[in-house]
């Protein structure tokens, strides 16, 4: 099932969704068996921002039918903390490393892309564009022109593959994907979480510390399939498909809709080794199916 993605050779098409697997913490919990049976063909790290972030106040989770809503708020050690504490470990993982970055302005994203742009440990960069540009107030990835300005700005800063992670909370994801492609993105990944909300049944007030959050899990799988399908009609560049993948069948569906790689996210919360299971199920399906 080897696959070439933006020039990166991968053993199979199953990777993780950013922010759903912390390889350092998992290594503390599971020891070296994690590295011996690493569940993904490439590792996408949690979003890195320029400054360290504590993240949103708890509570941060709410379980829904077939999924959950999270309001985590991108806690991370910041760029220098990541370079010092996380990157040395992640560089030694048995698979290529994709670093996910997010900035609150184009300058910040540029700073991050530049910082990783020549690092030999990093195989590709993923841009999290699901956040507001503090200068314009627009969600960068919700607007094609804003997305194009961002990608145009950072494209010259690195020769590494640039993946733009699309938000489903946009009126027209295919037009955002097209804008990213035309500005020089090498791939798009989708979907990010779908905006959702829960109320405290006892008080009627918002349950999550961040008020609203992102919905994930099989509850959003049909949305993901439709968005991957529509983006695949619009762009030529490869697509990383994700959203509620629990099985090899789900992964195959996204590939049939146009994805080159498939990411497992929330299912890893239920089973840390879900990536291994999805990969073996997909392998079996592909062996028995003409795709």
């Amino acid at each position, binding site marked *: 099932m080897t696959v070439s993605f933006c020039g990166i050779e991968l053993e199979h098409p199953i990777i993780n969704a950013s*922010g*759903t*697997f*912390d390889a*350092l*913490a*998992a290594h*503390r*919990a*599971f*020891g070296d*068996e*994690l590295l011996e*049976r690493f569940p993904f063909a490439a590792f996408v790290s949690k979003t890195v921002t320029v400054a360290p972030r*504590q*993240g949103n*106040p*708890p*509570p*941060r*989770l709410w*379980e*829904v*039918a*077939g*999924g*959950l809503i*999270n309001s*985590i708020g991108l*806690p991370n050690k910041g760029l220098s903390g990541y370079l010092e504490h996380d990157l040395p470990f992640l560089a030694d993982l048995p698979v290529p490393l994709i670093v996910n970055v997010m900035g609150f302005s184009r300058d910040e994203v540029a700073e991050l892309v530049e910082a990783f742009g020549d690092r030999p440990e990093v195989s590709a960069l993923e841009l999290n564009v699901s956040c507001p540009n503090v200068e314009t107030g627009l969600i960068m990835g919700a607007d094609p022109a804003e997305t194009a300005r961002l990608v145009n700005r950072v494209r010259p800063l690195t020769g590494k593959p640039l993946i733009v992670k699309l938000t489903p909370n946009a009126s027209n994801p295919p037009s955002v994907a097209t804008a990213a492609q035309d500005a020089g993105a090498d791939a798009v990944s989708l979907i990010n979480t779908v905006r959702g909300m829960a109320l405290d049944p006892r008080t009627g007030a918002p*349950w999550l*510390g961040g008020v609203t959050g992102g919905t994930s*899990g099989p509850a959003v799988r049909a949305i993901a399939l439709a968005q991957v399908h529509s983006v695949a009609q619009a762009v030529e560049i490869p697509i990383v498909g994700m959203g509620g993948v629990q099985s090899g069948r789900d992964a195959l569906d996204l590939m049939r809709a146009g994805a080159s790689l498939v990411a497992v996210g*929330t299912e*890893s*919360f*239920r*089973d*840390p*080794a879900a990536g*291994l299971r999805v990969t073996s199920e997909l392998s079996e399906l592909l062996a028995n199916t003409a795709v």
Partner: protein
Amino acid sequence: MTRTTAPFGRRAAPVTAREEHGAYVVIRCRDAEGPSPAPGQFYMLTASERWGGGQGERPFLPRAFSVLRAHAGELQFLIEVVGPGTNRLCELHSGDELLLVGPLGNGFAPPREGRAPLLVGGGVGIAPLAIWQDALGSEATTALLGFRDEAHAHGASLLTNPTVATDDGSVGHHGLVTALLEDELDDRADEVEVYACGPPPMLEAVRAMCTDHQVPAQLALESGMACGFGACFGCVVPTQDGYVRLCVDGPVLEASKLESALVAGAGH
């Protein structure tokens, strides 16, 4: 803090027995290939079948439980029905199957030199204190346990020689377990180290009391948790070092690190 590393991934554990202890259920399961947990560690549990389809089409995520006892390849978990996940787990009988991940998190650390362990438990939070009392030596380890009523006080039989308090006075001391703790700390604050697990208001009272008496305390906390191994960042609690993930930096935390044990969203 002590930690046993978990096998990577989720494994099947056949349920061998279901026992009722008043308002609580103890589920025993066979985990022949799993390692022995350190007292205070926890597991993420899922029923192999019909996980989902309960109230609100839940549960979806696994549920975190401190291990009650572990012996010769058998694990025991103490469960009280509070929602669709615990409801499903309490339905399990011998012949059914659990899926588990664990042991996870940091367990209790031995008491500081010159101090004797003093266990303080509330409700279903007595679970990690049972395995810890076994490890420390049951006869010699004082345990103070609080329950809301007689049905819940049946849980006291899971520890050795506990002193019991109930909210309604139906069993033992009439009042809160923290009143029993106050008496102990008035007598021998210099001689004990407190180990506590229970509902957030109880843990917060224990934390404040131990701070006042300058007694070291290790608190086993609970928080809403999706994964149990540091992936989701959902289970954070505020500490003097900022937010920490209870699943990988806890669930046992030094009371002195906490500003408050009133964890937002816990007990849901």
